[in-house]
């Protein structure tokens, strides 16, 4: 057993301010020095990912020359419904190139894979539109997408059909995407937890969260928002679940973390999901 200190963090505001000031000064100084000393002529272009230096948009018809099937099926995808129709510079970058970047260099090279954006390799292309997901993947508890160990396509099929249709082995069964990796949690149990019927996202923020295990709430609210009953006035201050007074247990901890209802994904031996 190892104990930790109970002292609170003692960072003083003055110290923090001075550190921030010093850091800002340092960064500013380095930036100024870099700009000042870099007088050499630079004929390269650097762009923020996922853009491709030197490439121009070519349009979906050009993509169709090699990727006929993908272009043909694009109108079935979820992304098709947000594609802005029309011609000209106002809509350049719509369709394939909205995710894969401008394709002229890729086309000119005969299909060099280094000259086109592959969202499977980096989520930056997806973050261009899904801004909030960028923040969620940066929180303490997240799926390792930014670390490159997963990609958005591990769970989402951007080329998938907008209508209900079997995709590989996943024919629209709830939780099936999560079950690809989390079989222990998603397997059938003798006693199910009905929340699983609504999906894993009932309790988990699957992109990222400030709460351990990516929970949407880390306290009793997570359970009580569903497990509730109208109370008699005389029981004010007490939480009865069915006939059982849970008040002393709620004081000690959260339903699932206080050693009681630990089998939150389902139990093989207890109808109250205790083990």
């Amino acid at each position: 057993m190892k104990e930790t200190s109970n002292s609170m963090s003692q960072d003083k505001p003055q110290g923090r301010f001075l550190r921030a000031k010093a850091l800002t000064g340092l960064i500013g100084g380095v930036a100024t020095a870099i700009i000042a000393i870099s007088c050499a002529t630079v004929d390269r272009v650097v762009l923020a990912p996922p853009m491709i230096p030197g490439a121009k948009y070519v349009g979906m018809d050009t993509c169709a020359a090699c990727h006929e099937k993908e272009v043909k099926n694009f109108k079935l995808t979820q992304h098709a419904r947000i594609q802005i129709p029309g011609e000209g510079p106002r809509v350049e970058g719509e369709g394939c190139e909205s995710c894969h970047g401008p394709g002229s260099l890729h086309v000119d090279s005969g299909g060099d894979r280094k000259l086109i954006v592959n969202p499977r390799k980096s989520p930056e292309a997806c973050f261009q539109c899904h801004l909030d997901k960028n923040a969620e993947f940066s929180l303490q508890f997240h799926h390792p997408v930014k670390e490159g160990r997963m990609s958005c396509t591990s769970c989402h099929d951007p080329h998938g059909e907008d209508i209900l249709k079997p995709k590989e082995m996943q024919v629209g069964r709830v939780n099936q995407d999560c079950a690809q990796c989390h079989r222990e949690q998603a397997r059938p149990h003798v006693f199910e937890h009905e929340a699983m019927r609504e999906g894993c996202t009932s309790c988990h923020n699957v992109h990222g969260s400030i709460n351990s295990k990516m929970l949407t709430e880390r306290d009793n609210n997570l359970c009580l928002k569903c497990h509730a009953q109208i109370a008699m006035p005389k029981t004010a201050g007490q939480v009865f679940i069915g006939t059982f007074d849970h008040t002393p247990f709620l004081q000690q901890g959260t339903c699932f973390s206080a050693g009681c209802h630990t089998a939150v994904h389902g139990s093989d031996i207890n109808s109250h999901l205790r083990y």
Partner: protein
Amino acid sequence: MKRIFLRMLLATLSMGVAGLETTRAADPATNSTLEVSVTPEATFAKVSGNTQKFREDVGIRDGWTGGIEDATLHDDISKDITLDGEGRFILDDHDYKLQLQITKKDVGFVRGGFTEYREYYDNTGGFFRPFTPSSFKLNDDLGMDVGNMFFEAGLTLPNLPKVTVGYEHQFRDGDKSLLEWGGVTQGTDTRKIYPSSKDVHEYTDILKLSAEYDISKVHLRDDFRYEHFSMNDTRADTSVDLNTSSSQTITVHENNDHDAFYNTFRMDSHVNDKVYWSLGYLYSTLSGNGDMQVVTPPPVGPFGNNWAASAINVDLDSHVVNLNSMFGPFKGLSFYAGLQAEKTDTHGFTDALLTQGVSPSTTNLIHSANDTKSLSETFGMRYTKIPYTTLYAEGQWQEEQIDLDEEETQDGASSLALGNDATVFRRDYRVGFNTAPLPRVTLAGSYRHYVANNDYDYERDTVPGYPGFITAQDFTTDEAMGKLTLRPCSRFSVAFTYQLVSTDTRTSSEAVPLLAPGGSLESGNYDANIYSVSATITPMSRWYLTGYFSLQDTRTVAFANHDPSVQTYRGDVYTIMGTTGYALDNKTDLTLEYSYSRSDNFSDNSSAGLPLGLDFQRHALLAGVSRKISKNVIARLRYGFYEYNEPSSGGSNNYTAHLASASCTVRF
């Protein structure tokens, strides 16, 4: 197992390469373009404070790590044959990847690979300020290796069915933290804050076979998959009494294996430019068995039973059929419609010995059956005739019927008999638009309304109280989203998004004499306002800047009958991120990345329960310089600074870390 697989993989691929080399030797006209790059790297991270928390957050371990950060291989062996490979091998961080693929155009491919990475877990439990000490750590360094090995071969001969066969072995092996915390007692107070962990040994073997073929305009595809899943997990839940310096541990051992077969058949066709249809059928069956032991030190009681379940069997059979179509566009209007029917039967059986309170044990037989039938319908449309504008609307409806039976006998006498017919009706509606009203301006908006009505009809319920208590539950979600993107010039773009989410949960329950009158109440309410801004600036061709800000303001209120231990959950989080890249000269690039996140929702509720919410600040700074030393050599240096402060954990999760890394990419 992993080593044997890797050897087999390399041997097979080597044979393939050798064969291809022979082909190349015999064909002097072949113009080989072999490209190989290798990036060796070494990293040193120094951490002060909670090392495990750093590992969990950043995903790397402290101290020295090193190896091959990245290796790639591409060879156009001949006009039709390509060899591709990529790898990664970081020692001491259990971060490995090796993938190779040989493709011959219009003939087929062989590919295989191995990946593994380690998920780290903090070993700290909860925090309760009045206790001394106020938080605890496990002695173990927690980490779980996650990975897979796979091998696939496919035939892609023209005018013949495309066939792919494959094998995959997935694994998860190690120790992970749990939120199942043990009790700590000091004086007369007990709080569940003692950390716990789970020893995980899980693997899945998967065999895959798929075939696809086009007959006229109809595309046919069949996917078969067999899975064998095995788990052997042990979790330990320790409670300590600081008054007597004693502790006790409840251990739960779970073994489970299941075999599952899946087969999906699908056919679809673009009849012409305006008509598309598809049809699919999935059959899946799963048969699982296992055993379980719960070992509770004496004295066992109503919530600390000893269980020994020697036979646990769960079987599942499922049929899913769907039919879909799409028509259009007709004058800018496209329609699509889909129908899906599902029937899933689950049967569970447990034969167990249960020791309650004092011996002797009782024999418990448990049986459950769940028969689910559902029908889903989708209808949607898209209109694109308004210049530079797309309008869309979609509706999804699902009717579900679930017949649930649960029975338990104890020494032959019934201890549980629950029969429940549930009906679920879900509706999901979305409307939205995407438009470019002006050059360099795009605007998008959408609205979603989701309702799920669950009604529970209990045919029988011999045990008062949960779970046969809720008679109905309704979930209503409203979501609105708006996005504005401006590109005033080619060097500057900015996007703003706002998202509003509101979910209400309404629960109805039966009356409980003297305790609850029965009826319906709003049991939960979740609100979220999410604001995001993203900007990209390219002041000059050698320099770019990106900035990002997000505020996620969330709140959850649950009905708790004025119990002071339950308070409103607040999950406000600020996130700021920025990156910049600068070409110092034709050979040197500088990069800088910074991210900051903060939450300030801590409420010290020690007098009524446990502290709630989280107060933290997290900084991460990563600066790098890369220099092209020669045509084929690029060297990189990186420095990282990480700081995490969490006053709401009493400082036990705080850490400060410095990271230095050097790498060099060599191309051959």
